[in-house]
């Protein structure tokens, strides 16, 4: 049953606002800009749109579907969401493809936007409302803000596997910094040597500033259409070959302390395996991967958990950065990712994957890219997309 969505839908348009810390307009205006740019790119207008899909935890209040529809003049439309945060940004496209497969929509727009670059503290204060467990049992002790969650993982990881985490973190951060500078569209504009990495201050030991994602104001959108409509449109279609959302019985509240398998992301592998199975492809078939890199530690775990190397071996796998570079075995975060391009929680991981498969990624193009993975997470949730250049 998992093959029914393969090639049912294709991406035909993408739009992004400039990657900046502080934008000159409000979030809702940024989202509308990204949607309009994606529709222009697709050669379509709002009148063609009959579906809206988004992440389902932040977007309902940040920019609701009905306000998009009311502003752009989208009349009768399918509305779908998938939770949470990064994982939902990926799996919203699963919902969109399902709507297309069921005949509920033909032209679906996905969007995501965030203004955490200009909202002081928003990225971490949004993790806990008053009286939530995070505020009541974690914040008093300074375990508040995502760097602390991942700094704690990193210390146990190092203790368990006895590896040179500084070298591994530095290699990942530098690889993505170089990709970001080559992309020409990144928020980050300063190069970094390993020496400079080591001199950068700690945020939450052992994580330093370059181990942590940027903060960004921006939005991105993509247009997903029924595949037979894609062929008449101006841009080369990029096919949605596999999509999945894997979860486990933990919540966003208690995942970071109670995850029984503390040094792995338990949902990463099942999500990626399911998406690859839907695509009828293997891990080795992937030409690149755009993975959720809120911290270097997060990325290091996924490299193991998705299966490019065994547990405890990712530090050696990325030691000199060559395997994950643009010309490496598995190029990762070709545009610079959350660490060095922009922090849209993975929305630009989706648009970058589409750009790569169109062969339109400029100086960060992976040679002959035919199949790519987008893997985005939030707490216990993991959303995976497998995208392909060719039908079939």
């Amino acid at each position, binding site marked *: 049953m998992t093959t029914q969505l393969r090639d049912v839908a294709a991406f035909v348009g993408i739009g992004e606002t400039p990657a900046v810390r502080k934008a000159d307009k409000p979030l809702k205006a940024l989202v509308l800009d990204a949607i309009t740019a994606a529709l222009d790119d697709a050669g379509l207008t709002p009148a063609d749109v009959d579906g809206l899909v988004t992440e389902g935890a932040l977007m309902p209040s940040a920019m609701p579907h009905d306000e998009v529809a009311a502003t752009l003049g989208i009349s009768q439309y399918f509305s779908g969401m998938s939770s949470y945060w990064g994982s939902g940004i990926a799996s919203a496209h699963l919902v969109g493809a399902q709507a297309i497969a069921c005949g509920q929509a033909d032209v679906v727009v996905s969007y995501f936007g965030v203004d955490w670059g200009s909202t002081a503290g928003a990225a971490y204060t949004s993790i806990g409302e*008053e009286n939530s*467990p995070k505020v009541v049992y974690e*914040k008093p*002790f*300074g375990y508040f803000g995502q760097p602390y969650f991942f700094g*704690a993982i990193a210390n146990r990881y190092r*203790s368990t596997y006895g590896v040179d985490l500084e070298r591994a973190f530095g290699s990942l951060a530098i690889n993505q910094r170089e990709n970001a500078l080559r992309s020409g569209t990144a928020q980050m504009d300063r190069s970094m040597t390993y020496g400079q990495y080591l001199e950068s201050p700690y*945020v939450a030991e052992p994580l330093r500033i370059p181990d942590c994602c940027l903060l960004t104001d921006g939005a991105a959108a993509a247009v997903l259409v029924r595949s037979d409509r894609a062929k008449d449109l101006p841009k080369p279609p990029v096919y949605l070959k596999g999509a999945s959302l894997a979860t486990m*019985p933990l919540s966003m509240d208690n995942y970071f302390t*109670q995850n029984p398998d503390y040094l792995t992301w338990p949902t990463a592998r099942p999500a990626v395996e399911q998406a690859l199975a839907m695509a009828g492809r293997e891990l080795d078939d992937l030409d690149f991967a755009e993975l959720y890199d809120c911290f270097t530690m997060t990325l290091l775990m996924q490299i193991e958990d998705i299966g490019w190397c065994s547990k405890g071996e990712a530090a050696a796998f990325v030691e000199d950065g060559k395997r994950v570079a643009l010309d490496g075995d598995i190029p990762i975060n070709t545009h610079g990712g959350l660490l060095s391009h922009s922090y849209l929680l993975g929305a630009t991981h989706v648009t970058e994957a589409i750009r790569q498969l169109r062969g339109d990624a400029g100086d960060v193009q992976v040679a002959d890219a035919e199949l790519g993975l987008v893997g985005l997470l939030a707490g216990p949730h993991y959303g995976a997309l497998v995208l392909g250049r060719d039908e079939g």
Partner: protein
Amino acid sequence: MSTSPALEEIGQRYVPVLPDVEGTLAAGFWEGADEGELRLPRCTDCGRFHWYPLHRCPHCQSPRWEWTAVAGRARIFTWTVLRRPLHKAFQDRVGEIVAILELDDASGVRIVANVFGADDLEVGMPVEVAFAPTPDGRAVPIFVPTSGS
């Protein structure tokens, strides 16, 4: 071993971030601390602990659980060190050890706490609870290396 600051000095640090939990599902933990006990939710049907408190035991789905005192001896599961305050409440707490602990007598759950008076932290290091009084009469559970270790 480095000397721990006095409990009163430590307690003062928590004043800006102590939650007002009266009447909420969270109240038992902080009420226990005020009375000098570390209390966690334990199911009265299956006997297992869970954390954080839920409306039903996540192991057997029983709605019956009670705040149950534990001895407060624990091992360091992992830790980080507060270096760059991401919130103004932590500006005066740079250098504090932020730990995740496994309690000796509440298997299957981990709690977050600060550890004071420890050098050369390592996974598995034994620690025990102490209660730091705050100026307004409350108390905060903190952990220090187990005496004699």
